[in-house]
């Protein structure tokens, strides 16, 4: 069994205080370590995730981080899979424990996506996170590629611009109660419809922000006596789709996510409709709907959304944290943070106004890189 015995997220925002990603990594690790009641010397494996050395100005960052954390003679692995990096790092940790190679694994995700480089430079770098030979040369942005994909999804499903606006409002409303969130904003539809079009149908307010931040987990192969409510990670799965949108069988659907979910739910031995809440990868307002459909969380996602079932007090709350759109997106930290959020909620330890009272049995953390190109999901189980 794999237990989450420590978890933490730093604030996700644009840092203006002169702090470094190495400070955020130390902050989140120390908090998770304290929650786990372990000592530093107990950690036998360190797994880190961050998307790009362009962001950090540091090649081979895992070794300097190990030094900063005072971890020596431990196994170190760095995991990178674009936006999915953090969740893939979680998977690596789970595999390390299940293979009995590790007993106590620290997983740390981070990225200084907001404050280290100008946003135009980050945008240019992100063009190369698709196929640098084709999309990179064309200079097409992530927003434009997501926009092309959601247009086909909207034509097929009937999702409309009012739904995109309402999803944005919901997620940012949740973020209002999350002290760690980047965009704690109360929107209305008019504001969203008036915000500039970046790539139709996506407007500025439909986009998740570039954030700075870090998140961490400590996984264990056994449940400590003082943490009997520590949740388990019971299923993991990942899968890919073609990078080139035009080469895909279905451009509007996140096929890789469907496959990843199939693998994770098979490992967990549960069905998608048993999930009680989910943190899904809403890089853009529409991506949340593409994710919910692909993950099989609803047999009629549009009706369920319009009926309020995915809101905080609905039957299947989605993105309680505010999601990427509200909480923010320091890329390498995102998947780790989503899993940490699920773990806290399942243990009844989340932020006061966001904590679900009737804690469900199962939760899902869903992450991807590219436009649903590389998907990674994890299923967690409550022990309350």
């Amino acid at each position: 069994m794999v237990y989450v015995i420590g978890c933490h997220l730093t604030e996700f925002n644009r840092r203006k205080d002169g702090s470094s990603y190495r400070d955020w990594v130390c902050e989140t690790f120390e908090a998770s370590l304290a929650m786990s009641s372990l000592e530093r010397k107990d950690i036998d494996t360190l797994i880190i995730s961050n998307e790009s050395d362009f962001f950090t100005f540091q090649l081979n960052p895992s070794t300097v981080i190990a030094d900063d954390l005072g971890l020596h003679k431990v196994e170190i692995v760095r995991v990178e899979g674009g936006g999915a990096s953090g969740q893939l790092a979680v998977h690596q940790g789970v595999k390390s424990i299940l293979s009995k190679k590790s007993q106590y694994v620290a997983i740390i995700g981070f990225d200084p996506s907001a404050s280290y480089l100008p946003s135009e430079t980050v945008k240019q770098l992100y063009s190369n996170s698709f196929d640098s030979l084709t999309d990179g040369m064309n200079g097409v942005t992530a927003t434009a590629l997501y926009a092309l994909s959601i247009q086909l999804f909207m034509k097929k499903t009937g999702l409309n611009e009012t739904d995109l606006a309402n999803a944005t409002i919901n997620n940012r409303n949740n973020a209002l109660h999350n002290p760690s969130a980047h965009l704690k904003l109360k929107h209305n539809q008019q504001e969203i419809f008036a915000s500039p079009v970046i790539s139709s149908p996506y407007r500025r307010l439909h986009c998740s922000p570039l954030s700075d931040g870090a998140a961490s987990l400590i996984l264990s192969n056994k449940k400590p006596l003082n943490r009997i409510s520590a949740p388990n990670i019971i299923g993991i799965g990942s899968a890919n789709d073609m990078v080139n949108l035009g080469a895909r069988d279905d451009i509007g659907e996140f096929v890789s996510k469907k496959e990843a979910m199939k693998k994770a739910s098979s490992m967990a031995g549960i069905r998608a409709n048993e999930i009680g809440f989910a943190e899904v990868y809403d890089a853009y307002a529409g991506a949340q709907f593409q994710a919910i459909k692909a993950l099989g969380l609803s047999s009629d996602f549009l009706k369920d959304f319009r009926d309020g079932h995915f809101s905080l007090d609905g039957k299947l709350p989605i993105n309680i944290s505010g999601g990427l759109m509200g909480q923010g997106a320091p890329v390498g930290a995102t998947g780790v943070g989503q899993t940490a959020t699920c773990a806290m909620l399942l243990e009844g330890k989340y932020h006061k106004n966001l904590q679900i009272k009737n804690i469900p049995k199962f939760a899902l953390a869903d992450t991807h890189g590219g436009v649903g190109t590389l998907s990674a999901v994890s299923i967690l189980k409550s022990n309350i």
Partner: protein
Amino acid sequence: MKISKKIELNYNISFGKMSKWLTGLTEGFALALKCSLCEKVSFPPQKICTCGSYKNSWIKLSGVAEIVTITSGLDGNYGLVKFEGASTLTVVKLNNFKGTETFGKILKSSSQNPSIIITPTEVK
């Protein structure tokens, strides 16, 4: 404390098998790969076909493409199009499109930035 650090990266990138395709873009024509087994035509070219075959040959497309959907805004104008003769769709940069056009034709792109750019054309 903050410091400003600027580095310049002058890449000298080689493209191997894809060089032929990129050279085609700089000369204003669309080269695609045709699978020798299932005859699927990929543009941009896929080294290995979705049928699993890696045997293929270069073919020259007409360069005319039909618009499937377009996106426009502050990030520029891009489209998903179907090039005549291709089995796959292609993401392209749109040049001088107003949003009502149905077809486009590939444009010659810069030798330092070989890209798939199309401009409106009236006849297929």
